[in-house]
């Protein structure tokens, strides 16, 4: 018995030593193990570039694809996949691609990949959600014939005679030209948007027809490639693409975990099961700064929140009335108390995310002054009751009610917030010209140009000009800006156009969006950009 004891001890000691050694070895190995950072997103609608206009899909595609241009800190375009983008007249643009880029299946990226992808995107019957970005290119109308008797009529739109944009022409394997309908100095920036990514030959089932399962595992030209397939409602995993010629990412892979609810994302971040949450929900903002410490961060994004005055409502037709309402709103109080600093007061008609933004271009009309507001409102004979209509599924009730309370106190009027179930219901009411009062709206930019705010929101034919504002002078200045020979001159015209908005007050600017995000202790250098995307090239393991 006695003799056995030391032997046991020796065995035990060896075992412990082996264990320790094993642990040490494991520690060394972990340096070689791929480092995968996880980012929380919602389920993307699509992963075809030209059909991706929502942020979840765009976030994933940004890992898989490299754009022609990206943007620097001052929102000016910098070349990425393009070697040069040149133009003499802002109408014909020659794009030369960098040599050496390949798709993840090994195919070389050529001019054809862009031309084919863009033709497919612009072809009306394909129903791609981002097709309208190609509107400026010559030949777009031939691909999108008008329905002869309008949308509701019995006749259907004729099938287009061609499926190729006449404005796209190949020069050689790495060069192609884009001819626009009208000169547009900002075209270089437009091409940075998601819908302008190229598609490999492997994407096509036949000419102009995408493979049905392409979006289950998209093949791109970006720094990361798909690892496995898109697991719907669960996850999308990407890994470093070794043959990527551009700047290499510092992480080996990204796991996009799909959540239905942002609060669940935050719960996983708090328990250490998720590395990056790009948008912390308001409910968690009270505790997040203490929970996360210096891992709780903020950065500006391009969101612009405002309310518009439908022009068919006579009670708001006087500019003094609109101005008085705007002056009676204490923006700071709302961003501080309701949004807990996750949004900032807006006092301009465009977001600071674009070059040419000026602080407080709205001037006095966006400065809180209840006394003056009340005097102005009474003098102009504003309506006794103000109504603000919003979509109830977007979490807008709290601030609309708060705004209403401010208007009640400061203008001495009655004010009600009316929630429509969905945004589409609000639009239906607008179409029928019902008395909806003020309408809540928001805008996220697609490419960083002032024009991307001014055009869709305030021009007569603007796609999101739901309130019907129309001023020929404004339209003209916008057009002059778009046709200006240089971006600097364009900005000058656009700023003049913005000054007209400050005079006319078609909308009340309310708030600017901010990315309020957080990350785990596993990662560092987490930056969320103006498009609310994580900067994947900067993201680093913490140790």
């Amino acid at each position, binding site marked *: 018995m006695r003799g056995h004891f030391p032997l046991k001890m020796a065995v035990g000691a060896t075992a412990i030593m082996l264990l320790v050694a094993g642990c040490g070895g494991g520690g060394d190995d972990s340096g070689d193990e791929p480092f995968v950072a996880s980012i929380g997103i919602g389920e993307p609608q699509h992963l075809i570039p030209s059909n991706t206009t929502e942020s979840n899909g765009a976030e994933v595609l940004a890992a898989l694809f490299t754009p022609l241009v990206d943007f620097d800190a001052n929102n000016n375009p910098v070349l990425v996949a393009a070697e040069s983008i040149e133009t003499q007249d802002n109408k014909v643009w020659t794009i030369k691609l960098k040599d050496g880029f390949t798709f993840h299946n090994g195919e070389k990226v050529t001019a054809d990949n862009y031309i084919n992808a863009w033709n497919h995107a612009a072809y009306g019957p394909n129903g791609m959600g981002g097709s309208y970005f190609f509107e400026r290119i010559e030949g777009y109308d031939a691909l999108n014939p008008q329905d002869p008797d309008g949308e509701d009529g019995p006749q259907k739109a004729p099938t287009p005679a061609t499926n190729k944009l006449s404005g796209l022409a190949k020069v050689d394997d790495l060069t192609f030209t884009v001819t626009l309908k009208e000169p547009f100095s900002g075209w270089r920036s437009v091409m940075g948007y998601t819908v302008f990514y190229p598609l490999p030959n492997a994407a096509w089932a036949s000419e102009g027809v995408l493979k049905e399962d392409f979006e289950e595992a998209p093949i791109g030209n970006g720094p990361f490639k798909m690892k496995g397939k898109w697991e719907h409602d669960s996850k999308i995993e990407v890994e470093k693409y070794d043959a990527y010629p551009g700047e290499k990412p510092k992480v080996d892979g990204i796991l996009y975990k799909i959540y239905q609810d942002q*609060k669940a994302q935050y719960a996983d971040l708090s328990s250490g099961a998720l590395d990056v949450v790009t948008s912390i929900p308001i409910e968690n903002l009270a505790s997040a700064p203490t929970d996360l410490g210096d891992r709780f961060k903020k950065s500006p994004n391009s969101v612009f929140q405002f309310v518009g005055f439908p022009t068919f409502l006579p009670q708001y037709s006087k500019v003094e009335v609109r101005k008085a309402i705007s002056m009676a709103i204490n923006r700071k109080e709302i961003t501080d108390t309701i949004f807990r600093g996750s949004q900032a007061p807006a006092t301009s008609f465009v977001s600071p995310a674009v070059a040419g933004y000026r602080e407080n271009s709205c001037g006095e009309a966006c400065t809180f002054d209840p006394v003056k507001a009340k005097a102005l409102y009474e003098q102009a004979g504003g309506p006794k009751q103000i109504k603000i209509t919003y979509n109830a599924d977007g979490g807008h009730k709290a601030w609309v009610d708060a705004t209403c309370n401010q208007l009640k106190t400061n203008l001495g009027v009655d004010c009600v917030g009316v929630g429509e179930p969905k945004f*589409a219901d609000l639009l239906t009411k607008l179409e029928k010209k019902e008395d909806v009062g003020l309408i809540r709206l928001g805008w996220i930019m697609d490419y960083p140009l002032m024009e991307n705010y001014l055009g869709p929101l305030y021009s007569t034919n603007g796609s999101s000009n739901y309130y019907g504002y129309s001023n020929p002078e404004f339209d003209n200045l916008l057009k002059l800006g778009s046709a200006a020979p240089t971006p600097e001159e364009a900005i000058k015209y656009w700023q003049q156009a913005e000054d007209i908005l400050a005079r006319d007050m078609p909308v009340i600017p309310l708030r600017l969006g901010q990315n309020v995000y957080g990350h785990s202790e596993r990662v560092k250098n987490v930056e969320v950009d103006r498009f609310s995307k994580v900067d994947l090239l900067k993201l680093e393991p913490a140790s």
Partner: protein
Amino acid sequence: MFRYFVRRVLQGVLTFFGATFIVYALMFANQTDPLQALAGERPLPDNVRQALTERYHLDDPFIVQYGHYMRGLLTGDFGVSLTNRKISEMMSQAWPVTIRLAVLAMIIAVMISVTAGIISGIRRGGPFDTVTLVITLILLALPIVVLAPLAQLLFGIQLKWFPATAGADPGLFQLILPAAVLASLVIATEIRVTRASVAENLRADYVRTARAKGLSKRRVIGIHVLRNSLIPVVTLIGLDLGNLMAGAIVTEGVFNIPGVGFNLFRGIRTEDGPLVVGFVSILVIVFIVVNLVVDLLYAVLDPRIRYE
């Protein structure tokens, strides 16, 4: 018995068609503009609207759309969602995880509520009965929208006993917390029904007879009382199983489980008729089958009940 079974199945078929028709009609009536709902606040260009309207037959009249849908359904084709995903695929992902969740919740609920119900039924007015009464009162008063995040915060984030969320393909361990939360929906009522039923049966004549015969207490309660007391409880459990599947919207949202509740919520939010009707038709079948099983179980529990 067999004739009864056939009759019930035929009734079930009728119920199935009636229910899907009504749900489809309701979704159709509720539809304002599903394409805009999908695009959110973005403008929807006319050409895109045209192409998608044709693809999903959105401009057809109700009967034609319903016809398209039923033709597909009867050949086993559930159609595609508005994001162009096969609904059959979505279902094959969602149903297994929700069934796992609901069954686990059911097991937790039955174990707790039948045990607690019997004990408090036997010792009415005792300390255990009183404590249970208070706890069930609290459970009844707490809505699941409060309970689920609270449980997540406490057991998932602060104590770290369980993972904070379960995900798309959860194991048993990951499902325990959400299942327990879901079970709390039905535990309170089940305890009370069991308790009342046991208490009533304890006073029944046949129990007195059994005691008079000199049977052991264990046998009196285990065989005579329990078997007779379970009839109302089994009915309740059967109904609850369906409720648990349909009512998992909040739990699945909080614990990030992409199951049936989540898909129903998504379908309703995006006005996606085929998606909602697909899931509801399976839910209808679940309800029909479960209720049939419950009715057949009566006969097993109570020999006096005969079906002809």
